[in-house]
């Protein structure tokens, strides 16, 4: 490897020997093309014309008045396929094309990253196969259909807990046997180097735009930036725009599930301990022996027992702060934003909204300018939300 991919002591390349050359090849290609004029022109074209960038930084007037703060929403929910995921899949998809890869594989939990990968496969003419836990396949039939409509092949995973972490395990296994022809398109700032750095790079467009937009609208930087954290890509994307502005408070919000004090939680940074999972050293939810626990969150995107290594670094250095909100709080925020602003957020993003509400209600935070990364829209969550709210649809 050309660089070591460490954030302090976190990150690294904890993978079987078979994958090392693939990671070396990927790192070299990423370093070559990330500043390549032609590559970036093509990527910018697709981000604008295919995905719908730039996204607005919307002043949420009604919510602001209610909370006594200035609340801005970064509208990643307006992107094609409904979330920020497309920023990364376009970047990596294009990289795979430049590398001459003939096949793309991906993992998906609820299906959002799978869909964002599937459409990029169609766009670029590269066949896509998506690993998805059998339990998720059954829970998210509609998304399976969407992926298949876009020409992707969905591979149900019957191993282990049959959810996201098992889909990742199987995608790695596939890649171990197919590295010559295949690119593994990881959906978050997790996994072995160069993924955390590369995914952050492709998501940093969120932070760049937000910084410009807030300066234009407010003439100053925000006091606080709030984003939800599963693997950590939307939060890392928006944080990256403000990393060097020490006066801007960065807050990551994890899926607390039934509560951080319960066994049913996805709050890896709040509750986990240091360990190695899926190729990098970071925080993980694990038992005394280091066996990985099953995470739980109402939001599939936050339902993961690991977290990107750079978030671990930001946590221990204190640059960012991490907290969690419960399923219940997230669902309340989901309803609240829908009602007050006419914007239905994804359940993942609802966690960031829920935290912002709590934050704004603290007297010393009154009047602050707060940016929430609205990472995705809630269309995908309709059935689940209705069920949780006791509504029959």
């Amino acid at each position, binding site marked *: *490897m050309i660089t*070591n991919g460490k954030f302090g002591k976190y990150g*690294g*390349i*904890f*993978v*079987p*020997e*078979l994958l*090392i*050359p*693939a990671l070396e090849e990927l790192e070299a290609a990423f370093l070559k093309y990330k500043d390549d004029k032609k590559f970036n022109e093509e990527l910018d074209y697709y981000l604008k014309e295919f995905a719908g960038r730039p996204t607005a930084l919307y002043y949420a007037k009604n919510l602001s008045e209610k909370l006594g703060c200035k609340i801005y929403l970064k509208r990643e929910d307006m992107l094609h396929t409904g979330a920020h995921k497309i920023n990364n899949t376009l970047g990596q998809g294009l990289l795979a094309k430049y590398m001459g890869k003939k096949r793309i594989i991906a993992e998906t939990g609820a299906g959002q990253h799978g869909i964002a990968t599937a459409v990029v496969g169609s766009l670029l003419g590269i066949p896509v196969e998506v690993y998805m836990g059998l339990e998720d396949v059954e829970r998210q039939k509609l998304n399976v259909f969407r992926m298949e409509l876009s020409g992707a092949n969905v591979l149900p995973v019957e*191993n*282990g807990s049959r959810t996201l*972490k*098992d889909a990742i*395990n199987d995608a*790695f*296994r596939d890649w*171990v*046997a*197919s*590295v010559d022809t295949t690119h593994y398109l990881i959906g978050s700032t997790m996994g072995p180097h160069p993924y955390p750095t590369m995914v952050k790079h492709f998501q940093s467009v969120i932070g760049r735009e937000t910084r410009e937009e807030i300066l234009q609208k407010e003439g100053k930087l925000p006091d606080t930036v709030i984003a939800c954290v599963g693997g950590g890509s939307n939060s890392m994307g928006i944080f990256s725009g403000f990393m060097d502005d020490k006066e801007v408070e960065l807050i990551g919000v994890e899926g607390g599930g039934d509560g951080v004090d319960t066994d049913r939680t996805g709050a890896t940074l709040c509750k986990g301990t*240091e*360990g*190695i*999972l*899926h*190729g990098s*050293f970071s925080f*993980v939810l*694990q038992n*005394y*022996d*280091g*066996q*990985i626990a099953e995470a739980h969150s109402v939001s599939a995107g936050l339902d993961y027992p690991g977290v990107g290594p750079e978030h671990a670094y930001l946590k221990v250095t204190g640059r960012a702060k991490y907290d969690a909100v419960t399923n219940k709080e997230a669902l309340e925020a989901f309803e609240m934003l829908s009602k007050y602003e006419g914007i239905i957020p994804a359940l993942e993003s609802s966690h960031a909204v829920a935290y912002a509400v709590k934050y704004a209600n603290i007297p010393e935070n009154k009047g602050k300018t707060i940016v929430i990364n609205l990472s995705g829209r809630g269309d995908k969550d309709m059935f689940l939300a209705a069920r949780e709210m006791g509504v029959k649809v």
Partner: protein
Amino acid sequence: MRQGAMEVESYDEMLQRVKDKKEGAFIPFIVAGDPDFETSLEIVKTYVENGADALEIGFAFSDPVADGPTVQAADIRALNAEMTTEKGFKFISKIREFTSIPIGLLVYYNLIYKMGIDRFYQIAKEMGVNAILAADLPPEEAQDAVAASEKYGVQQIFMVAQTTSNERLTKISQICSGFLYVVAVMGVTGARKDLKLSTVELVERVKSHSNLPIVVGFGISKPEHVQNVINSGSDGAIVASAILNLITENLQDKKMMLDKISAFCHDLKAATQK
């Protein structure tokens, strides 16, 4: 006898012993505690009685990315039987009550890290482990593990594969001790019908870049595979999934399981004759 007090044979001694008999080493694998602690121990006894020259013992892990479905199923059985790292080491000490042949541990790095790297190697040594291989620990990340292995005199094994460049091969053989674990196939562990010609070429390539003994693993499923890798110049062969399949298929009938494993190991060992 006190735990670990038995004189332990080294890999070098064992390899010399089989070489003198014009054989290669037969090294069967098991996940400690699969399908349960007692049966697992009986299986290891069966291995030893039927010609095992060394043992490869896995500690179960919840997310074994380098392994195929067979080993993962074994991991799940062992974890369901409430195996822990502590019980894994107890398992090793029980094996040491009846055999002195080399024991290699095959683990995922999180288990080592979580216990504390130093402590893991110290206990491994005390229990009679010869060598440790962490499947997801490439040399780039292995400084702490290698330091602990040197401190306690436990050998640190690394894998090399078809994708490993000659330059990397040289580097790996400098920090590896005991033997080089050559991954025979492009992929995860698992039984396979054919063992490709490329394995033979890989063995030759590794031999020309390293003075360490080499042992081939992954995908070796039949006596003829064992014969092929030994004839290609490998010092030994590790057989895992093909034996574990016999556990999976005979969970309801322990006697049948042990009989089948016994006969299969006998044939695999016979195939190591040069």
